[in-house]
């Protein structure tokens, strides 16, 4: 009469199927609990997938750095000295800081430095103008809506080409007008448009009113020499961005005679912090989902236990008969606990099926909309397994209550009860 004894199970099933309506009502609590748990977990996953989609194309392990003015007088220099990074600094950092995988320098006109005028047919757009390496795409991918982004060839040949933002396009072109191949004027110099981009949903420095030209072209056209405005730095995914950041800054401080404690001289932005924040947020959400789910589940299982308690009371006579016929307390106990487990598991399975269907529905509704961060709200096998184990474990524990009540029934008293 082991646990896998067929008779034990048929005993359990025959008692449960005896009162089908009650069995089903009993399971409702657990069904709802599982639905809530799975929906919450699924929604969390959906949310985190949604965030991931937003951040797709942006390297998590990256940072940006630019130069500002010193705030501490040091090495014979007054405070307030402005520093300009150069291509040489880029090479130096690449050589000396192991954590760095790639640096994409940028120089700009417009918002950060100098003024620019971007014009076409007498219309001016007031766009910022950036001289970029094509490698910037590896740090933060541009969403190209038409044409293409800058490539190495443009760079090598210092072609007078540019990629413009959709806002720039709207300001300079008529609605529906084809921009590719057309020329625009930047500070009096003609560039032909090769692509139009749209901004990412995530971190965005440039906005949609911006013009990208090859770095080399920018250097020559606007006579900026080796000067750069900022660098986008990609750090080895296995290394910490903050470590690289400290190393790079101290290297630059040394080079430019900046006081070691001067935090104003260089500005930087660590993108990995944002990503960490988001994963922490989804982790908290997940924890919350589990927490709420577990308590609903507990409530559901307690409901099962309650009903079983009532059933035990109703079955007093039957239990007495079984005892008189030779059922030991252990056998009675095992049967009631199994009833609890079977009821709960049955309910759990129904709950799983319903909630997975609901998740699909949610995905169908919201999955494709781009304004709502909600994509593919699935629950992992691991989560399902954990919930299931929890559910069975809980039902076993809670089943002990009616089971103990059942074995407390004295056969003689049970038989007297009519």
């Amino acid at each position, binding site marked *: 009469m082991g646990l896998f004894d067929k*008779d034990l199970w048929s005993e359990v099933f025959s008692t449960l199927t005896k009162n089908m309506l009650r069995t089903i009502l009993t399971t409702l609590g657990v069904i709802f609990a599982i639905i809530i748990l799975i929906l919450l977990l699924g929604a969390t996953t959906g949310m985190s997938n949604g965030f991931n989609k937003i951040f797709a194309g942006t390297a998590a392990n990256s940072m940006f750095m630019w130069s500002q003015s010193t705030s501490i007088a040091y090495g014979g220099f007054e405070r307030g000295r402005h520093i300009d990074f150069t291509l040489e600094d880029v090479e130096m950092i690449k050589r000396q800081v192991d954590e760095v995988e790639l640096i994409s320098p940028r120089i700009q006109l417009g918002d950060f430095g100098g003024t620019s005028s971007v014009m076409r047919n007498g219309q001016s757009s007031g766009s910022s103008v950036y001289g970029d390496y094509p490698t910037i795409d590896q740090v933060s991918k541009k969403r190209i809506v038409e044409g293409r982004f800058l490539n190495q060839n443009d760079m090598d040949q210092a072609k007078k080409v540019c990629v413009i933002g959709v806002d720039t396009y709207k300001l300079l072109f008529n609605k529906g007008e084809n921009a590719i191949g057309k020329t625009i004027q930047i500070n009096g110099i003609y560039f032909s448009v090769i692509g139009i981009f749209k901004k990412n949903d995530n971190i965005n420095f440039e906005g949609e009113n911006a013009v990208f030209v090859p770095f080399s072209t920018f250097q020559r056209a606007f006579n900026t020499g080796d000067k750069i405005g900022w660098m986008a730095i990609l750090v080895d995914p296995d290394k910490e961005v903050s470590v690289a950041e400290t190393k790079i800054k101290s290297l630059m401080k040394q080079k430019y005679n900046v006081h070691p404690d001067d935090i104003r001289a260089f500005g930087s932005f660590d993108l990995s912090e944002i990503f960490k924040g988001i994963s922490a947020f989804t982790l908290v959400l997940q924890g919350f989902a589990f927490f709420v789910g577990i308590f609903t589940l507990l409530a559901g299982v307690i409901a099962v236990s309650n009903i079983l308690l009532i059933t035990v009371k109703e079955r007093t006579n*039957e239990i007495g008969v079984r005892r008189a*016929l*030779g*059922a*030991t*307390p252990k056998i009675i106990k095992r049967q009631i606990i199994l009833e609890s487990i079977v009821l709960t598991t049955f309910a759990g399975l129904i709950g799983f099926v319903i909630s997975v269907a609901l998740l699909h529905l949610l995905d169908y509704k919201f999955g494709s909309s781009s304004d709502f961060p909600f994509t593919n709200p699935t629950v992992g096998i691991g989560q399902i397994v954990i919930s299931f184990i929890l559910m069975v474990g809980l039902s076993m524990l809670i089943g002990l209550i009616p089971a103990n009540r059942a074995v407390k029934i004295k056969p*003689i008293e049970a038989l007297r009860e009519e």
Partner: protein
Amino acid sequence: MIEIKGLHKSYHMGSNSLHVLKGINFNVKEGELVAIMGSSGSGKSTLLNILGMLDSLDEGEYILDGVPIKNLNETKAANYRNKFLGFIFQSFNLINYKSAWENVALPLYYQGVNRKERKERAVKHLASVGLEPWIDHLPSELSGGQKQRVAIARALAAEPKVMLADEPTGALDSKTSYEVMDLIQKINDQGKTILVVTHEDDIAQMCKRVVHLKDGLIVEDTLVNQVRASEHV
């Protein structure tokens, strides 16, 4: 088969205590058919329940088939009941959602007999009480007499040493009562020891020995000329 010496039993309810059995000495040999009589509240059921290990004794000795019955815990009592005893109740006590054969097979289930053999043996016993066509019926589909016959088949199923019947005909009309007694006599004819608690004289006369209880003592213990129930059917 049954030896009882100096059996005492009291019930306590709060500060009151009720001395129900006040020193019973009682022996039953194998193959006997004993009627236990007495007025209501005289302790007949109490005695039978103690014999059936459904209740504990306060004082005295109980030996069943040479096995001293003492220091019983619930598990041991359940195993002894299963092995040694068959019960028949006034109210049948069948499990209402199990078919006749499943009810009969229940003691065998607790003995660990496999399902196939259980069914075979249950059907055999149901046939011996004349209920072969009813094996798949639920208790609710059976008459009182049929229910009691199912209960008798169930009591027989585990092939017990002793059968204990507490007013087996108490809920039945006299014709059906005689049919049931006929069955009990036939089982007894095959050598089974049976104790029957009854209020009715005619039923007692169908046993081989009548024991009278009064105020917790045996006041009369006589052998009778057995009346065959079949003559009345």
